[in-house]
């Protein structure tokens, strides 16, 4: 991650809340892993903390800034690009109808189009004596074309497409039948899968995981609004540390279930994770109570 460090523009946009959700997540994840960028972010935030109060009055004056101008222009451009096709077509048509030469050309095109269409239709009717494709498919099929289903694996088995029987007087055209693969009808074995998963947990581990999952859901919704950028970076960094420890200890315990030290660290790490997630919820509650 350190190869593609963030530039100061992106960091400033991140602080100003101008990045999209995905970009914000990307920056947060990067800063959590890159000390250089974390330092740069901290510096930028410190500068902002000094500059913002000093310039608060200027920020609140009602003068459209360059950024506002560019945003407005971008919006107009975007709106133009996103205009529906029929609107564009209508605009073109409206423009075209103002010129008499264009009207004449359009009329000619229309007339040619109508004649052309009529001619094509007539010629198709005369040629259309051959049997339809469905009838051709219904013709007798050589049995060798079908591989016996019993010799195939279940997944490879093919089922012939049933075609409607159409009688015609023309000589039969022998063609290989069209096959399509059978749709796999494997049922989701959710209960069967969850049973071994539950069995894979150590005693007490499942409750930790469930608690963490519940907390994580609520925290994921809150953290964007509750935590400052630098706090979010610290939070993600700590979460990465804890997750890393959990991952290592899980592997260790799986390898050696009698390793009590690894088990203890694993449980402590789960507790740390819960504490981390709880800290966000508690902060949110505190913020709400101090209104």
């Amino acid at each position: 991650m350190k190869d593609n460090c963030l530039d100061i523009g992106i960091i400033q946009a991140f602080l100003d809340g101008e990045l999209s959700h995905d970009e914000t997540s990307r920056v947060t994840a990067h800063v959590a892993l890159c000390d250089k960028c974390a330092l740069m972010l901290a510096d930028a935030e410190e500068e902002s903390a000094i500059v913002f109060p000093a310039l608060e009055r200027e920020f609140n004056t009602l003068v459209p800034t360059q950024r506002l101008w560019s945003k407005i222009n971008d919006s107009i451009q975007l709106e133009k690009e996103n205009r529906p096709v029929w609107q564009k077509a209508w605009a073109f048509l409206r423009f075209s109808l103002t010129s008499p030469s264009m009207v004449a050309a359009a009329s000619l095109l229309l007339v040619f189009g109508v004649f052309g269409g009529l001619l094509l239709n007539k010629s198709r009717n005369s040629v259309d004596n051959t049997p339809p494709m469905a009838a051709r498919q219904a013709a007798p099929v050589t049995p060798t074309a079908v591989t016996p289903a019993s010799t195939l694996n279940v997944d490879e088995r093919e089922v012939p497409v049933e075609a409607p029987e159409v009688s015609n007087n023309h000589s039969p055209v022998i063609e290989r039948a069209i096959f399509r693969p059978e749709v796999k009808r494997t049922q989701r074995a959710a209960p069967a899968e969850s049973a071994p998963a539950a069995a894979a947990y150590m005693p007490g581990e499942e409750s930790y995981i469930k608690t963490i999952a519940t907390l994580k859901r609520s925290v994921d919704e809150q953290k964007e609004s509750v935590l400052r950028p630098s706090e979010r970076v610290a939070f993600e960094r700590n979460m990465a540390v804890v997750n890393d420890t959990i991952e290592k200890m899980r592997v260790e315990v799986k390898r050696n279930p009698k390793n009590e030290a690894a088990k203890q660290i694993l449980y402590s790490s789960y507790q740390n994770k819960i504490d981390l997630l709880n800290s966000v919820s508690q902060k949110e509650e505190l913020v709400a109570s101090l209104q």
Partner: protein
Amino acid sequence: MKKLIENLMIVGAASVFLATGLLAQPTGRLAPDIDGAGAPSPPSPMRPSMFPRSGVFTRDTTERSIKVDPAINLEFSCVVEGNIRVNGWRRNEVRVFVAGGSKFAFRTAQENIKGDAPVWVKVVGINSDRRIGPDSECLSGGSIEVDVPVGASIRIRGREISTAVDTVKKVDITSIGGDISLRNISAGISANAGRGDITVEAGKGSMMLTTTEGNIVVFEGSPSDYGDIFKANTHSGTISLQSLEYRQVNVGSISGSVSYSGPILSGGSYNLRTSKGSIRMSVPAKSGFRFWATYGYGSFACDLPHEIITENFVGPLKALAGKAGSGEATLKVTADNGSIAIRKQ
């Protein structure tokens, strides 16, 4: 030309829309200093958009005092911002001085048994010029100075506050941002700084110190009663403890080092833990304890004469169990990704 006029119209409409929105939105900015008596408040480190402020606070300078019971419980249930200094004095009186902030009042929640002095007083802000919603009871000030009896218990809940408390009985502080500095607290501390450092000097009684993003430094701490415990936790920060005389110490950091310098008391239980960082202890040479040291990607060193009872080196994790001296205390040190060192004082 037509296009230009159209663009100009859009821009004009957008400007008007924006201007209307800004005017309609409550800014939450502090009103200008009208009387000029209040000291100008320092620039808030909080960015304006992050936490919408409760309302519009005027900048006044107010001082009030009230006669109270010596064991007063003084509560600041909502302080939006400011530097709070609380000092204990030998008078049965509470004095609060707010410079460059909102007006406030004392609200008596309970009186003593004799009924002649309050034992529980709340300090509430008066913000009658709040434009939206009910009147806020939050206090705001550039500088808030409080004098209380030395036997007072202080409870503060605040947003962006820097707090210093000196010579009182008990303290319970929770803040979202800002440092907490405590000195000469005689019967217990509970401090929770969301984003800030916690410093305690010469504190007694149970201590529960928690910070999400900050360091914890404690110098001279001891129990005021049997069984008082010491607990310190930070998510991102270093914990440094010196001269603690607790028999139950529980310390943890997720990404930060832990440093302990002090005695290992007989019968004590010491649990020091960090996920990413090292643990360094400096203990008297004659200390006696049984220890369990677990560490990964680091090393273990103990200067004291000791014997290793069990060793378990499996994978990246190393676990040691041993004994130093008489072994009357238990010491559990865990550094998931770091080293452990126990040095002689």
